[in-house]
């Protein structure tokens, strides 16, 4: 089986400062990869390089496209990359406000990706939109309300619906549960886990919350100072951390 996403020697520098250095890993279809580390460890830089928001200095991000098989997304043309960004890829921002159009109704937000890939039938767009709002547990009566009237958890769920409506194969998530209270977090994680399993999605999740990766991720990568400190199966890394930094990370979690 071909890996869906294959990252090879990815490096991004900000002048003399290293954002992330020499990162390599493979992600197979249906697999969820967690990336953890402290603030400033290069997690978000890595994610943005993979998603095409930043241009890395070195390395390859090879994606198994539907049409042409494995392609390096860094050297592919911008129209092709942007096309991937609204079809096979999805990007869930930490702050829902970054990923949503706040001046457009919930339905318009979800429908935008459909219209971007050519849907021109209002009734069908509407039907699919309403269906997706139901899947992320937003009441259908809120379809014409603006996201500004939604709670933080609802905005985040709306952002997820907006991203998944075109049936992407790979989802990038940047701290999807950041800024939400614990009970809302738990529901969101439950929802995400269900969607990932049902749709057979692959995902790369960046977070500093070990509980999130414990629940969602199959594999885990621990980053420190822009490099990979440790990588392996999630349970293995969390239950038996080998690298001193991983040990510190695991032991810093508050036990209730």
């Amino acid at each position, binding site marked *: 089986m071909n890996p869906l996403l294959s990252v090879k020697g990815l490096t991004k520098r900000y002048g003399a400062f290293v954002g992330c250095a020499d990162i390599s890993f493979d992600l197979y279809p249906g697999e969820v990869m967690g990336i953890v580390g402290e603030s400033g460890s290069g997690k978000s830089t890595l994610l943005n390089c993979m998603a095409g928001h930043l241009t890395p200095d070195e390395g390859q991000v090879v994606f198994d496209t539907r049409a042409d098989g494995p392609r390096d997304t860094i050297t592919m043309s911008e129209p092709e990359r942007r096309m991937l960004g*609204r079809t096979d890829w999805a990007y869930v921002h930490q702050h829902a406000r970054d990923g949503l*159009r706040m001046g*457009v109704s919930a339905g*318009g937000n979800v429908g*935008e990706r459909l*219209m971007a890939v050519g849907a*021109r039938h209002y*009734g069908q*767009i*509407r039907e699919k939109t309403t269906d997706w709002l139901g899947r992320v547990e937003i009441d259908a009566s809120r379809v014409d309300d603006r996201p500004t009237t939604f709670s933080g958890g609802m905005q985040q769920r709306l952002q997820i619906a907006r991203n998944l409506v075109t049936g992407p194969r790979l989802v990038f998530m940047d701290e999807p549960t950041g800024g939400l209270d614990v009970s809302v977090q738990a529901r969101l994680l439950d929802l995400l886990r269900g969607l990932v399993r049902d749709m057979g999605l692959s995902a790369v999740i960046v977070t500093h919350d070990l509980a999130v990766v414990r629940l969602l991720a199959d594999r885990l990568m621990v980053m420190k100072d822009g490099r990979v400190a440790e990588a392996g199966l999630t349970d293995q890394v969390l239950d038996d951390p080998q690298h001193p930094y991983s040990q510190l990370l695991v032991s810093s979690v508050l036990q209730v």
Partner: protein
Amino acid sequence: MTEQAYNFAYLDEQTKRMIRRAILKGLAIPGYQVPFASREMPMPYGWGTGGVQVSAAVLTPNDILKVIDQGADDTTNAVSIRTFFERTAGVATTTATKEATVIQTRHRIPEVTLSEHQIIIYQVPIPEPLRFLEPRESETRKMHSLEEYGLMHVKLYEDISRHGHIATSYAYPVKVEGRYVMDPSPIPKFDNPKLSDMAATQLFGAGREQRIYALPPYTEVISLDFEDYPFEAAKADHPCGMCSATDSYLDELIMDDAGGRMFVCSDTDYCEARQAAGYKGKDAA
């Protein structure tokens, strides 16, 4: 200072050359917004500085100029721009659509079908159709260059979800020759079908935003819509009160404070020509 101190049509020749280059580029790429170095004009922004500069660049001494504002030849904007060119260019002016060779317009296309020897110049306040959906100019330019126009339909979607039909009634977005999405300036959507396949050359000037765009004669212009909510050219469902025309775009006039109202053609030349030909509406004196 005497009027003779001005160059023909107010602008200096170098400026007119620069504007003509932008116009030619616009004609070569229909619907594409060409940046140009808009000049300070002796009138405030929003009063047609873009249209005036384009008119100045295309006017020749033999031209006959017509200026309309919301269809009317006798409103402030139309009168002041017409006088401006009478004084600075000395060109002949007219209010008859058929006689004019250059027509500068704000918010309307004349009812009379235009011909190949005419140029119509639109005053444009905001040339970017995606502006109120995507505030970043860098991003809208990229969306134009990559033909990413899904967002334009989000606006129409919002209209239908809120009002049950496409409620955008002016500045209705169009697609030019299957390529560029264009703002046709704030003309009522009733006029949108006239844009397509028009014999006259259509030029659009936005002074404050420093953009010129153009439609060469016989360009295909299609109004955006949904399959199940097709585009409709809407007008008030009345005949004109003065000339009884049923095929023209109408203004609604409030006559008194007891609910009295009257519908008249917004195109004054069209209405007057019909009245002169003997047509009489129910409100005509």
